[in-house]
């Protein structure tokens, strides 16, 4: 984002009261795919207004599944929330369809971009603002272009022809078009160049600071995520195995080794020096 500040299109939430109710609260959900595969078991987490909460975990841990459950799109993959509840601003939404959830101000940037390939960049953005008035649409679009100037040049390009990184920018921009109150990001830095990654994280932070946007962030880049998150959960094999403030986690030895790549000795280990393949599931104990 070009020097912050100018972002005024979102109504700031009042983040004053001592313990505001969580913007998003998940209680003990269990998700089953195809009536047979249990992908998420007994997961609970909470995101307070204005917080950035990170959700970390290895491949297949169930992070994306949690986000899909929150957004109400599990049914498209034959998944169901078997147990538990999801509260958005105190309202149970686990049975709501996706558009209803968007209307309540929660939008997701899905994993793997999932652009509307045959539509142009502009049309992708317009779809993102589907529930917005025309005036707000223009405003939101200007904001997105200020965030990703590269997209402004590619407005009329068919999205399917963009490079991976450009697609990711469109995906994030598209979600921002609806001016959400809660934003769920599934691996936003995936496939982005370092310069852009920095930019994205800076922008997430600025968004939060200037607009009070609440953010649930699924990331593999743990050091980045922990750097901006207030609180974080770590998932393994469909369960939350650890949670705490970013500070606490950053100090945890396991997290340091397996997520931040910092061994007990000072200094960074070169990837070349990793001598053996590490085994998973040690969190299960």
């Amino acid at each position, binding site marked *: 984002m070009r020097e912050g500040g100018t972002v005024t299109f979102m109504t700031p939430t009042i983040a004053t009261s001592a313990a505001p109710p969580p913007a998003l609260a998940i209680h003990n959900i269990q998700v*089953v795919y195809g*009536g*047979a*595969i*249990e992908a998420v078991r007994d997961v609970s987490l909470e995101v307070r207004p204005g917080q950035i909460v990170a959700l970390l975990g290895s491949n297949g841990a169930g992070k994306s599944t949690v986000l899909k459950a929150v957004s109400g799109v599990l049914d498209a993959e034959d998944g169901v929330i078997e147990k538990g509840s999801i509260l958005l601003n105190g309202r149970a939404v686990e049975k709501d369809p996706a558009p209803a959830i968007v209307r309540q101000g929660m939008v997701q940037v899905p994993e793997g971009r999932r652009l509307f390939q045959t539509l142009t960049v502009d049309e992708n953005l317009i779809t993102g603002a589907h529930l917005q008035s025309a005036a707000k649409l223009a405003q939101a679009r200007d904001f997105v272009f200020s965030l990703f100037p590269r997209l402004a040049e590619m407005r009329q390009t068919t999205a399917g022809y963009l490079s991976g990184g450009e697609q990711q920018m469109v995906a994030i921009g598209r979600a921002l078009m609806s001016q959400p109150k809660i934003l769920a990001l599934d691996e936003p830095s995936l496939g982005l160049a370092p310069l852009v990654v920095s930019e994205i994280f800076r922008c997430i932070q600025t968004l939060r600071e200037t607009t009070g946007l609440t953010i649930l962030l699924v990331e593999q880049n743990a050091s980045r995520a922990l750097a901006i998150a207030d609180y974080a959960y770590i998932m393994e094999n469909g369960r939350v195995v650890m949670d705490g403030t970013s500070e606490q986690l950053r100090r945890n030895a396991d997290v340091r080794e397996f997520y931040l790549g910092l061994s007990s000795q000072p200094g960074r280990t070169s990837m070349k020096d990793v001598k053996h393949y590490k085994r998973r599931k040690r969190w299960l104990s």
Partner: protein
Amino acid sequence: MRSGFFKQGYGELVVLTDSPAVKWWTAALLVVMALAPFVLGNFLLSHLTIILFTTVGALGLMVLTGFTGLISLGHVGFLMLGGYAYAIAVTRWGLPPEIALVLSAVLPALFGLIVGIPSLRLHGLYLAITTLAFAHIVSAAILAGGELTGGGSGIMVERPVVLGMDLSSDRAFYWFCLGVCALAVLLVLNLRRSYVGRALVAVRDNDIAARTMGISLVHYKLLAFLISAALTGLAGGLMAIYMSFVSVEGYPFLLSIEALAIVIVGGIGSVLGAVLGTVFIVTLPEVFASLMSFLGGRLAETMTTSAHEVKTILYGIAIIAFLRFDPRGLRGIWHDLRHTWVHWPLRY
């Protein structure tokens, strides 16, 4: 529950089934099928015969649409070519029926190659429509075929003697179809588990990736059309023998659709699905017919004129309800049943 998760050689990994139970059941089914004519009445026997040769055709479409993902709305064209190839070979050229049956597979296969050529450039519905156009053109050509094809009047064919079997007996014809069908199922199963079958599926799922694996799209799409058309043509030949008559009107567009229905209801991409789908789609209308005469009694008599409509409506609703209930098709239901059976009372 099955045991035997431990394999002693890699050979065991490529077998069609590693379950003794499945082997036993298959053998039992074959024996029962072979003995069926001794117990079944005329009607059921001819119904089974229809199922058998329809399965052969359905397998053909399964190879093309199910494996390779090329949707065809014109399979009735291959069926028609197969039927006419047989009829013309036997009645016009006086060829022996064995050779005529081979022709009924070969001629459509050649046409399959021609129809396949557009598939290299066209995708999805556009290809589907070209196959539809092909079927239309075939029927127009046959109508204009004069003496050779009998134009609009069609050709009568007698039930032949094939390999010493006199097919004019319904039983003999049943056994013949059973043999052909079993062979076709086996061949397609083998095809599916070989590199050829995997290449076809790869083309369906991701043609660019398939190309980088060294799979030539031209080669395999044409191959799919070739095999598919040959099987469907053979089914056409059998159907001509069964009907003893070929005419252009005997091959309405609806047959293409029913073939697709078989493939989809059965479960895309599965040989078992093709078989189950055929049984389902071929039997469904008969079930409704007998249901109506059973329930109807006098009612059925008074509504003879609407009976056909009621039957058709029930048929349509059954298909809709079925897909609504389980869009993965019969194969999906089959897997669920098996899963429940194996895991019960646990759910996961």
